[in-house]
């Protein structure tokens, strides 16, 4: 009788066994690669930060805001912004030379349609932000200075909105922190 029960429930036992083994294997690989991924992401970010502030020697980081220093001199601030574009998330890094003016904008990762969406990386669009006043960081139609790329409206609009939203939050942080 006992064997019969095992025989009948064999299918369930087998499936559960396979699931346990696969879940175990996965957790193993996950724990192996987890800090590697974090390290990789951090490294990548540092690279972008250095690109934004070439003379940076060290930086402080608290509540998602980077304070960039050259020795003791405060060079500026930097923060990340992210929004869903046409076919995936777009992550952006925004650098401020001081509380008002934008130093520059860098696209960290995007999976837009190559040739169309990827034009947000190219010259006219990406460099328009440098030197722009912080509260102009809105669409031209909404009273700001930033304009989208014809033909890639979804992607470029996503970038501008991401920057403007993040700027508003972070500036509140900086001003609040100064007072």
């Amino acid at each position, binding site marked *: 009788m006992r064997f019969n029960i095992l025989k009948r429930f064999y*299918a*369930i036992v087998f*499936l*559960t066994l*396979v699931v*346990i083994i696969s*879940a175990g294997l996965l*957790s193993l690989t996950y724990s192996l690669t987890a800090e590697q991924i974090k390290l990789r992401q951090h490294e990548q970010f540092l690279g972008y930060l250095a690109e934004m502030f070439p003379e940076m020697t060290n930086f402080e980081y608290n509540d998602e805001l980077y304070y960039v220093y050259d020795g003791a001199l405060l060079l500026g601030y930097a923060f990340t912004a992210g929004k869903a574009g046409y076919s995936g998330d777009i992550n952006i890094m925004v650098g401020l030379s001081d509380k008002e003016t934008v130093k520059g904008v860098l696209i960290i990762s995007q999976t837009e349609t190559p040739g169309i969406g990827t034009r947000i990386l190219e010259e006219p669009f990406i460099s328009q932000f440098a030197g722009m006043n912080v509260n102009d960081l809105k669409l031209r139609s909404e009273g700001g200075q930033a304009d989208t790329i014809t033909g890639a409206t979804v992607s470029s609009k996503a970038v501008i909105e991401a920057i403007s939203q993040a700027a508003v939050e972070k500036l509140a942080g900086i001003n609040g922190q100064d007072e």
Partner: protein
Amino acid sequence: MQLVAAIFLVALIGLLCGLAIYIVYIRVPHKVPGLGKIDEINKLLPGMNCGACGYAGCFAFAQEVSRNPQMASQASCPMLLGNDEVIKQLEIALGVSIDTESMNRKAMLHCKGNSENLFDYSGSQSCKAASLLAGGFKRCPYACLGLGDCIHACKYHAISIDKNRGIAVIDYVKCTGCALCVRECPQNLISMVSGRSKVSYRCNYTEIRVIPGRERCDNGCIHCRKCFAACKYDAIVWNKEKAIPEFDSARCTLCGECLTVCPTGTLEFFQPAELIPSQKP
């Protein structure tokens, strides 16, 4: 530590899934009422789902037959024709005797395809579409257009196109009498005849709709009745309303007299070549 909990929970999901499949596998009523019998009959049937018997596939036919068994004898299921032992098993299963005579049928095409094209048709390659265009592109409005609607319908690949005459040719041996092609032909050129018929009347022209500029081809029957007069075994009966000969396959001896005497060559042997005595060398 959290990973171990995650593994445990995912394993739990796996267990639940396995359990769900198992329960459905056991609890859902294994047998649709009477499925056993239907399954048994279904196994005997060819499983081609050709629809010749008029039902949506062999399983539906099995359901119908298991409900009223006498219906089986007029069933035009082609595969049952050939092998007798399947019919015997079916008779046992249904508890009724099936006479196979009424089952043995073949498809016959009533056209020799000798009428030339009136215009060069390059539209949709289907007889139904072509026949909508002023009754087709052939001089004779009843002629076979040779675009193969019947070929697509035939599940036994018994019909092919005769390239030089441009008409369909039905292979006597492969044809299982499933009658699927009859519905497909827009010119209703194909009719089901008994498997034993010897001579075929290869013309479909009737005076019902006379269209100016359109007439029968050289092989069209001119209703001269010579074949009726020439037949020594009076195997031909003259149908007065339609004015066409009808053949009694029991009396016909395949002597070929009517074929030679017919001025337009409308008649042809229907049996495969090797069965026709007069054509042997």
